[in-house]
Every structure is written in structure tokens, then in C-alpha cells.
């Protein structure tokens, strides 16, 4: 069981992820933009952050930098509809870069993979 922060501006999508991941047995917090996410990371300890990129107020790239400056070791998965941010070097600091799909299996597998490697370490 892990504590996961989902950062996603689309409410329905965010809630879907939350439902699916809760089914997996994780504890889920939600943030609707980068700014909220940074505040929440400051206030709480998360095992994993799932980060969208295109968001109002503060985008995922900026949030990524701020979260990493607070906690260098926090695992982050970028989960976005856009594949072109792959060329932005900031995204390279994330543990994974996945493109959105209605099938969440890929995301779930990645989460499992990352959490497993962390728990070993």
C-alpha cells in the first residue's frame, strides 16, 4: 500500500485514476494543478506522484522542478496526452513518461514496478 498524489486538471479523469488505484489498494490524494501539488507535497509525504503536464496556473514541468527541489527522491510518473514533452529535458528527471490511455494497465504496471524497486532500496 502506498500513498499516491494524482495531479490532473480534468476532474473526471482524476477521479477515474483515484478509483482505479484505490481498487489496487493505494491511498490517493488529488491535486488539480501544479501549484496545489507543490503545496501538498510540502505538507505531506507521498510515495509517488502522477503528474499531468498541461494544467492551468502551474504546469507539470514547473511543478516537477519545485517538487524535486523539495524532495529529491520522490518517484514521479509523467502521465500526459502529449508525447512531444519528451524532448523537454525537465521530463527526463521523472521516473517514467507515459502517454495517456483509457487502458490504465500500463500505468498500474509502472506504479508497481517503481514501488517495488523503491521498497527494495
Amino acid at each position: 500500500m502506498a500513498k499516491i498524489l494524482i495531479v490532473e486538471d480534468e476532474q473526471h479523469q482524476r477521479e477515474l485514476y483515484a478509483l482505479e488505484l484505490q481498487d489496487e489498494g493505494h491511498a490517493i490524494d488529488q491535486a488539480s494543478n501544479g501549484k496545489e501539488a507543490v503545496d501538498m507535497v510540502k505538507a505531506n509525504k507521498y510515495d509517488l506522484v502522477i503528474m499531468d503536464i498541461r494544467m492551468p496556473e502551474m504546469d507539470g514541468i514547473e511543478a516537477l522542478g519545485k517538487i524535486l527541489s523539495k524532495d529529491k527522491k520522490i518517484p514521479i510518473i509523467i502521465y500526459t496526452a502529449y508525447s512531444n514533452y519528451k524532448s523537454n529535458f525537465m521530463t527526463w528527471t521523472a521516473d517514467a513518461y507515459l502517454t495517456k490511455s483509457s487502458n490504465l494497465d500500463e500505468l498500474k504496471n509502472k506504479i508497481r514496478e517503481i514501488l517495488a524497486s523503491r521498497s527494495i532500496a
Partner: protein
Amino acid sequence: MKNWIYRGLFFFSPDILFAFFVAYLLFIPDVKAEILGTVAVGLAVMIATRALFHKLGRRFFYGRRIDAIRNILDGYKKGRFIVANPELSGSDDLSRIYRELLTLGKHLSSIINTQKIEIEKFQDLYNSIVFSLSTYYMILNDEDKIVFANSGLCEKFHFDQNEIVNKRIDEIFYFVNRRLIDGIRQVRRYENSVVLEKTHLLSIKKVSIIADIKISTMMIQGKKLEIVIIDDVTNKLQKDYQISLMSQISESIQKDDEIDQILHTILTGVTSGAGLGFNRAMLFLVDGKGENLAGKMAVGPDSFDEAIYIWSSIAAGNMKDDGTGIEKRKSGAELLEKVLNAQFSLEEDSIFSRVMKNMKYVHIMDLWGAEDIGIEIKTLIDVMEFVIVPLVAVNRAIGVIVADNKFNKAPIGKGDIELLSIFASQAALSIENYVRLDTVRNEMRKIGERQEAIVESEKLAAIGRISAHIAHEIRNPLVTMGGYARRIQQLAKEREKEKTKESSGIRDAAKIILSESERLEKILSNVMDFTRPARYLREFNSLNDVIIDTVNLLKNLLLEKKVALELNLENDMPLVKCDFNQMKQVILNLLQNSVDVMPSGGTVAITTKSVDQSAVIKVKDTGSGIDSEDQAAVFEPFFTTKVTGVGLGLAIVKKIIKDHGGDITVRNMPEGGCEFTITMPVPS
């Protein structure tokens, strides 16, 4: 006062006194009879005396004065108004009349003298006007014979003024225009005047001009004569013609005419009577390498008879030489052939290479006597006097024009050469312009091709931007929808344990939503792949490796679709600088396409080989081929003949190949199916 004395005397003249005496005697009866006889005698005496008095007395009294006056009048009749020594100094009436006559004579004489001077002055002026005009005239009688020709005319046409008198006009001009003859007849018949514009005249001395001819009739000493005034307009016309010729040349350049046509137009300008009026002209141009001077065009008759024929046809009213160009070319076939076969090296010293080098004309007066002209050139030109003028275009001689008067043997004047030089420099510019225009045209064509390529890629880019935007906008809601559908499906599955009809219905519906949203997602990811800005890794890769890698990925698909695979890979293929994954995408899409066009199975053959500086991949299927009208469109984005599919597979292939500097084509095979050929550049 003296008048009255004379009158008084006259009043008492002897015959009156005698009459008084007779009248007295008649009153005496005795002597009446005697007297009647005496009266008769007396009357007779009186009449005789009176007659005598009249005859002699007048002569006696006035004789000298009357004679003097008569002399004066006789002088006047003869036009002499001055009398040297006045004879009469008397104070009587006649003497006074005489003196008045003398004064009048002096007066008249001075008037006449002043008028004579005026007339002479006017005549001088008139003569100088007449002679300074470039007008020549001759007077013809009713047999068309020349009665008089002015010296200007004789000078112009090299006639002897005395020799031509009494000759018919067709004896002194080579051919007499129908217009001229008709004009003279018309004037003779209707006594009006006629103007014949721009008539060509060629004298037996071979002087040729173009003139406006005015014919009118006049009466001289009761005879009707025609005056023919010839106004030489050759120079004026030459200038007009040159201007029109130059515009004609530039027009024909714009009309994209053949260079031959332009050169011919130029030489027509040199030879036509209205142009520079040379008999023959030849044109030589430097070849591409600048080593040789090659004959390009010639205009001019081959013989004197031909020359006469051409001149007469021009004189027949064909002033403008548009149709006659071909005619002339035909007539000068021999000369043209000789010139076209002529070629002279510019490295060797010859009269041509000298003109080209010095960029200055050469005027040869005696060809056969000139020692510095080679025999080859001598036989080609074959005329005593000629001129070679360089065609100079912006400080560079691009050729020469040779002009001569072979047939009328007219000497080539300095003015002629100057005109020819000016003309040649304009012609040279025209030729140079044509050559440049040709180069520009080629460049334009290349640019056009490049532009098409740019437009194509711009089109793709625009489609890319639009579809990228749409794709991303659609993807988010789609992902959400699909996610929930999946969730519904999942939930329904769990409830299935309860085995309700309701739950299976929900599950089926969710399944449909899911499959459809998955399909949409797949399309979107294709579009996004296509529109993703290209950032290629450029590494040296073996195309064979790319193919083997891709084929391995698709093994199962091919098996499933009953598609057999043939690989003919050349062993030592050169490495190609490319993005390995992108090239994999290319092969993948092509194989996918092959599988799609062979729904009931078939064979795909992939061949590689190296050709010159490129690596070639051929992908051949055994499908139904491409309809001819679709061949150009198969690489267009969103073009598809399949029921499912976005129509981006081949567009992506083309984009990747083009981005790599390669090329892709497709053709139908005679045995059926089609073959894609990819050509990738190999760095040297």
C-alpha cells in the same frame, strides 16, 4: 500768257481774213459773177494753203520736239527709260512734256531696277531652297520620256544629266513599279496629283532608295507635262525601321521564339532596304566554351537575279518583311548552308579572332589583295569589299556580323559602318538577353520545382499543426470515456457472478464503448506520430538491420494474415545515415500497407541493393495494384482506399523518407500488385 498771244494770232489766221474779204466782195453785185469764180479759185487756194500750212507748218514749228518725244516713246517700248543727252531745253509745252517724260523714265527705271534686284534676291533664295531640299525631280512628256531631270536627281542616282534626257523611266530604273506607272497614268488622265509613299527605286547605276513620289501635271508652252518629285525618305525610314526592328527583336525574345528566329530578324534588319540596306549579312557566334566562332545565320540572295527578284517583290508594296523572311531564307539557301557549316578557332589568328579580340570593326576594300585573311574566309565571303563588325555585349564580344554589298557593289560608307555598329551592339544585347533569359527560365523552372516541394511540405506542416491540435483536444475526453467504460466493464464482470441479464447487457454496452474509444485512440496516436515535430537521430545504420528488426516484429501478424515474406537483401549494403526507429516505422507502415491490400493473403518481397550513390529498398506485394488516378495521391495525408484506416501510413513513410533526403515512388507491376521503391542517399 503766251498761250493767249498764240490763240489770238491763230484767231486772225490768213484763211479767216481771206473769208472776211470774200464775204465783202459778195455784197458788190457787179463783181458777183466774177467773184463766184474767184471764190472757187480762192477756196481751192485756201484749202491748198491750209493743207500746206498743216503739213509743213507743223513740221516747221514742232518737228524737233515731236521727234525727240517719239524717240523716248520708242525707247520706252524697248524697255529703255533713260536718255543720255536731253535734246530739248525750250520752254514750250512740248518741251515741258518731253522733260516730264524724261523724269518719268528715270523714275520708272529706278523702280524696275529695285524690282529686278528684289527678283534676283528672291530667285537666289528660291534656288537655294530648292537645292537644299533632298528632293529630286524630273519632268516627263506624254511618252514617259524624260524632258528634264534636276542635278540633284542625277547626282543621287549617278546619272549624266544630258544622257538621260529623252530616255524612258524604265530605261534608267531597274524595274518600274506598277504603282509608279499607274500613278503617272492617273495624273495624266484626271489632271490631279498623286503621292506614292515609300516606293523603292533602284537605278541602273544600282543606287537604291526608298522615296515618297509626288506626281502632278503642268502646262508648259501649251504642252502637258508630268513633274515627278522624288523625296528620299530612306534615312528617316531606316531610323523608324531600326526602332521597330529592335522592338520586333525584343518581342520575339519575349515570345520565346527560337534563337534562330531572333538571329534572322537581326540580319533582316542589316539587309532590308528599309534597314541598313546591305546586300548580304552573315552572323557568327562564340560557342559555349569560347573556343570557336560558329556560323549561325545568313541572309541575302545567292545571285544578282535573286537580288533583283527580292528587291522587286519588296518594291511591289511588301515593305514590311514579315512573311518574306522565310522566302529570303529559302532564296539564300546556298549562303546559309555555307555559313552554318563554317567554324573558326578563336585561338588561331584570323581576321575574325582579331575583330573579336579588339572589339573593333574591320573594313576590307580588297579581299583578294588582303594578305592577312585566310583562304577559307576568303572563299566564304567572296566579295571585294565588306565589313566585319563585332557583336559587343557589355565589354565582351559574343560574335561578329559580316556585311557586304555583293550585288549592287555600292561602296560601304563610314556612315553605313557606324549605323551597323550601333545596330550590332543593340543586337548583341538582344542575343545576350536571350541567352540570359534562357538561363533565368531554367533557374525559374528549378525554383518552381523546389517551390512545389516546399508547398507540399508546408501543406503537410499545416495539416500537422491542425491535426495535432485536434488530436490533443480529443484525446483527453476520449481517455476519460474509455477509462470509465473499462471500469463499467470491470464492475459488470464482478457482478456477473449474480448472473443477471441486466449485468451482461451493461457489460456488452461497455465493451462496445471501449472498443470504439480504443479505435479512436489508435487513430489519434497515428495522427500524433505523423505530426510530431521531426527530431531524428542521424546515425549510420544498415538498412538490412532495419528490415530484419521490423520483420521480426511483424512475424506473427504476417502469419496470421497468410502473407508470405521474401527477403532478398544484398550483403554489402552501404550504411545509411538515418534514424533507426523512423526507418523501422517506414518498413512497418509499408508492410502494414501490403498486408491491408492483400486481405486473402499473398506475398511481400523486400529487396535491397546499392545503386551508385544510393541505397535502394523495394517492397513488392501481390495485391490488386493502385488505380492510375490514385497513383499521385497515395502519399497524400488522409488518402485511403481502405474501409478502416486514417490514410496516414504512406504519408508518414513519405515524410520520413523526404526528411532523410531520400525519395519514394510507387508503380504497378505488370504481373499484378505494386512495388514501392525507396532511394536513400549514401554519404560519400
